[in-house]
């Protein structure tokens, strides 16, 4: 019976040696030399966001540089009149289903790549990498025909499957990297204690993969959330459209309602910002762990 699971070995990164008898050079840099460039960069990055907020919150026709008087009319318009409420639900469904499917399948595939040796393994890895170079637009017609054969055109399932398929190669490569970082001896110890391979994976390996899984899952979610092409091409029914397609419908051939577009942009961005705010710690750990060859 396993009573304790050894923690995953952590790489020890030694701090750079301090110069003798003095503060580190870093501490000697005047603060303004650090904060001034950072502030300029931050300003440069945040101005477009402020601009979006400004257009979304100020009344139509206003040229004020501050969102005052403030109005939520644009949000109300996109959420109700332009069906963003419905698009939002669809995008959440597509994003979550892609996340689950991608993570589950990539886990299985990544485990196989990390733990088993088989013929053409290197070729398979190479093929996975190469598949990343094929743009989705190139495969639109074949995918369309496949989904048509499966009677899946105009169903969210087609978008979920297509997104999952496109996410899998990178996710599998990343997860295999995470799994390689977990010493096989941990699993072997569990087998000795009577676990099956699956149980050992579930009890020993899986908990150690949490940062990696969060990284891969969030990557899959965000990509599916933002992706426009598959939803546009495979879905026709208005009630099945997703947020990126909805955003594009706010742009007429000859005129654009900038207030509604900005409000729609915020509706589209907020979930992604929230997801990243919660997971950024694991995301950085996950990607850096997967980046190291085991």
């Amino acid at each position, binding site marked *: *019976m*396993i009573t304790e699971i050894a923690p995953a070995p952590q790489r020890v990164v030694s701090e750079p040696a301090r110069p003798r008898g003095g503060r580190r050079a870093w501490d000697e840099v005047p603060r303004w030399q650090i904060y001034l460039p950072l502030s300029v960069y931050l300003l440069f990055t945040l101005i477009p966001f402020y601009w979006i907020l400004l257009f979304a919150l100020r009344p*139509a*026709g206003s*040229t004020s540089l501050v969102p005052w008087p403030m109005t939520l009319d644009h949000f109300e318009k996109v959420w109700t*009149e*332009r069906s963003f409420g419905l698009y939002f639900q669809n995008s959440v*469904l597509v994003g979550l*289903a892609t996340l*689950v*499917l991608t993570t*589950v399948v990539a886990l299985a595939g990544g485990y196989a790549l990390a733990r088993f040796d088989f013929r053409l393994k290197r070729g398979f890895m190479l093929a996975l990498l190469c598949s990343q170079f094929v743009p989705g637009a190139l495969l*639109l*017609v*074949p995918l*369309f*025909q496949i*989904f*048509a*054969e*499966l*009677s*899946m*055109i*105009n*169903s*969210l*399932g*087609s978008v*979920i*499957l297509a997104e999952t398929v496109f996410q899998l190669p990178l996710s599998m490569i990343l997860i295999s990297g995470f799994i390689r970082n977990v010493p096989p001896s941990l699993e072997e110890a569990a087998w000795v*204690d*009577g*676990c*099956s391979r*699956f*149980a050992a994976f*579930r*009890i020993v390996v899986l908990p150690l993969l949490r940062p990696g899984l969060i990284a891969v899952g969030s990557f899959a979610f965000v990509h599916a959330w933002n992706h426009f092409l598959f939803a*546009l*091409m495979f879905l*026709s*029914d*208005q009630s099945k459209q997703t947020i990126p*397609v909805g955003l*594009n*419908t*706010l*742009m*007429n*051939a*000859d*005129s*654009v*309602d*900038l207030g509604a577009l900005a409000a729609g942009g915020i509706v589209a961005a907020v979930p992604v910002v929230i997801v990243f705010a919660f997971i950024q710690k694991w995301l950085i750990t996950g990607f850096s762990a997967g980046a190291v060859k085991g």
Partner: protein
Amino acid sequence: MKINIRRSRRAALAVALGSVLALTATACGDDGSGSGKSKGAEGSGKGEITFWDNNGGVRTDIWKQIIADFEKQHPDIKVNYVGIPAANAQSKYDTAIQGGGLPDVGGVGTAFLAEIAAQGALEPLDGRLEKSSLNGKLSENVLGTSKAAGGGDTLYHVPTSVNNGTLWYRTDLFKKAGLDEPATWTAFYKAADKLTNAGKNEFGFTIRGGEGSIAPALDAMYGQTGITSFWDGDKTTVNDPKNVAALEKYVALYKKNTPSADVNNDFTKMVAQWDSGTIGMLSHNLGSYQDHLKALGKDNFRGLPNPTLDDGTRVQVSNPVDGLGLFKASKNKAAAWKFIEFAASAAENSKFNESAGQVPVNIDAAKDDWIQQAEPTRLAAQALNGENTKIVQLPYYLPDWNTISKADNEPNYQKVLLGKMTAKQFLDTLADQLNKAQAEWKQNQG
């Protein structure tokens, strides 16, 4: 331990089952039948048809009203509305032509009519129109443009709306400067100069330098020279010396009388800049009327058709015509045609164009009160049908037209604005490409 293993199995089973259920629940789709190669059928004239709106979103509400009116009059036909973002309509059609899933009826504008017709996806409509109540009720000029855009003498869509190039100007700024309306090119250049005070960020004009810049440049060029045909035999007139001189004069406005940001401005940025800044004139089309109304208020701007020559002659390039196409793959063409006839009828065409802010193609609809009250639309309708107006038909029928007039030459036009290429070099390059494309097209036509 056993409990853990059982739990893990249950979890795995739940995930697998959940995934299958989720996909099953979301997989209530269709087989996307109806590719460009399918011949379709006339059908019973009853049942369901699918309509793709090529300008979905902004026009969704008005189309839903028209569909509701239609279903009330034809209770045995149900129309499924699909709104497609304007920028992606052509790629959606192209994918469906290759892969299947074409609608019965679709909004097909002249910008990509030839390309879709060339793939054999559209039903010729001359015969149906001849027997229809619409016969004689559609503007002959616009029908001519539609046929030309389709690549010959065949009608591939029933035109519903026509846009027109419009010179929007700020009446408040003109009044303050004591300027007359910019009805002629002479008045236009005078106003552009007088209204510019770059130090105060005030400009006379905003020029389109980003995406979609070629058609407005051609419009300004032909408008100034009075050349009325795009072709002189098999050679294009775009690089005629008079046109070169006119373009040189027009692009010289850049930075002198326009904001320098114009070099990258597509219509969205150009319209937003005009609506929120202090700029005297903007050359766009009727489509931005509502934007100006919201931003400036009805008393501070006007929209005129493009300026005339000093003798009152107006020359303008052909404007995009929107229309409804009947797809060959439709298995219910009879019902689909009923819908097209209904949507192009006077009452519905009027309703649609009032909402879209465009000129109705149905001549009875064009007489309605709202047009008389909406000055820019009324003036555009008069200009389109006026005796003094000559229309230079742009070669929308060339399969390469979109590539030539966009990706191939927009960067060159930016070089002209920035002074890195001369107007002559630009127009010679454009002419060379157009002449080759025309020769190829003629060869393919046999």
